[in-house]
């Protein structure tokens, strides 16, 4: 019987070859401020999680009664705003780079799902505030969720349920997707420029006029 350990190690090494997880060199074409927003987004997520953890130490209503708690809540709010701002710029940047090319479709898809999952996570955060905002948002949101049957299981009028989704289930989901996204980025490397050819090699694309080529994912 073959070793499971060796099998796992081989699988991991095949998924992200040695040197690709934390590379100390990058392709020469990676030269634009747009690349910064991916790492800024990830950094923001770390701040979001960190400030959320500090809020959790104080408890659900701590931030209503404590100046320090309110400040921590403010850091949580603004880190979320920065997280989304950087993520949206990152997403648009990747769209205009057609970053799904060269077998990178799954990278794009995990990024898109991470965005949607983050929207849901932030939404449950707004529902967990136990203030006027959460009252009103819950009252409005229930109609949309009930209209498509989701409200039968996901009750936005129950702040206890929403808080647990906010601090456990959804962050776990987003976390797993983000890790998968990063692994895929490291595995495939940064997508080359559109129509780029490796210097010194013949332009295999030259036979196909650029304007008619589709930006597919295959290869």
């Amino acid at each position: 019987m073959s070793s499971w350990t060796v099998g796992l190690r081989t699988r991991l090494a095949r998924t992200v070859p040695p040197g690709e997880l934390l590379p100390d060199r990058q392709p020469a074409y990676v030269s634009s401020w747009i690349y910064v927003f991916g790492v800024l987004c990830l950094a923001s997520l770390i701040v979001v999680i960190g400030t959320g953890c500090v809020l959790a130490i104080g408890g659900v209503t701590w931030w209503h009664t404590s100046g320090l708690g309110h400040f921590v809540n403010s850091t949580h709010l603004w880190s979320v705003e920065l997280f989304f701002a950087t993520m949206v710029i990152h997403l648009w940047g990747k769209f205009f780079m057609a970053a799904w090319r060269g077998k990178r479709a799954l990278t794009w898809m995990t990024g898109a799902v991470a965005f949607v999952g983050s929207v849901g996570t932030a939404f449950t955060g707004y529902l967990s505030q136990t203030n006027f905002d959460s009252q009103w948002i819950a009252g409005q949101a229930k109609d949309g969720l009930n209209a498509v049957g989701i409200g039968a299981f996901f009750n936005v009028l129950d702040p206890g349920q929403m808080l647990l989704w906010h601090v456990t289930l959804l962050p776990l989901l987003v976390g797993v997707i983000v890790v998968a996204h990063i692994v895929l980025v490291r595995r495939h490397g940064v997508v080359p420029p559109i129509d780029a050819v490796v210097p010194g090699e013949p332009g295999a694309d030259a036979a196909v006029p650029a304007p008619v080529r589709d930006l597919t994912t295959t290869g």
Partner: protein
Amino acid sequence: MTSTLHRTRRDGTPDSHAFPTRPYDLVKEFSIALVAMLVLTVVLAGVFSSPDEKPITLAAWANGAPNDVVATAAGELAGTTTSAGYGAPYNTGGQGQQLGPLALQRWAGVTIPVDPAQDLVLTPLSRVADPATRAALAAWNAATSDQQTTWATAYATALGNATDGNPAAVPAGDYGPVPAISSAFLALARAGGLEGALDPSGAFYGTDSTRGLLLLADGAYLEDQARARSLGGDQWGMMNETGNYPGQPWMWLYTFWYQVPPFTTSDNADAQVWGLMMLLTLGLVLVPFIPGVRSIPRWVPVHRLIWRDWYRKQGT
């Protein structure tokens, strides 16, 4: 490595590892980014803080808009409130919304049962020891369902016709015990007795606000307060929050549909907007596979700007 290995892509995208490289410190870049975002977060939090407007309590509602509380109680008894006619997942009082032929709202049935008259008004009042209230409840419970509806509907209508919905301005009529019940309900709410009395578990540790929020939303007070803060559904309220804060701008598209026809006039607007957003979300995820959409980056040459150094050096 041969060029054959480098260029394995049918779409002509070469292997990124085949290109010339330059030194790069990933860990250093991430560390700087982390510190930058942490500092920016702290500065934004320190300068702008965050909104925290206290929740509306049922006592505050009763003291701020007593006529609204009385009207809501009468409406719950008459079965004319939003909750009473809602349908799934709370009750069978309404058909709920449909997405075309799909009655998604009804598929799971009643999973969070709420009988508005009983759960939001009568049960909380049953805990009141006041003899007059007990007598009113006894009279209500002794009546037939039709009689109850006739009384409550007549009183709710009379309240609607009275100046400012003032119960004192309602003309005499055959309302049965409904005025007494509504009045007792107001008194209970004013005294703070409704807080916690609506929890379905009746437990000491209440974490479920479903009934309290349904009751509050059945009145006009909550919406009046929200609209005064530009939080109404037709005021882009789904993405706003109290005060001058950014709220949830990432929900702009979801909120947008509620501002335009046909959703502004549709009885199934929520289901339709959700259906549309689910479709668009699926489209976002599947962009790499949608012909035309996946080629937009070639037609809109933003990539020429992003990779301008590379294209310039390559002379392309």
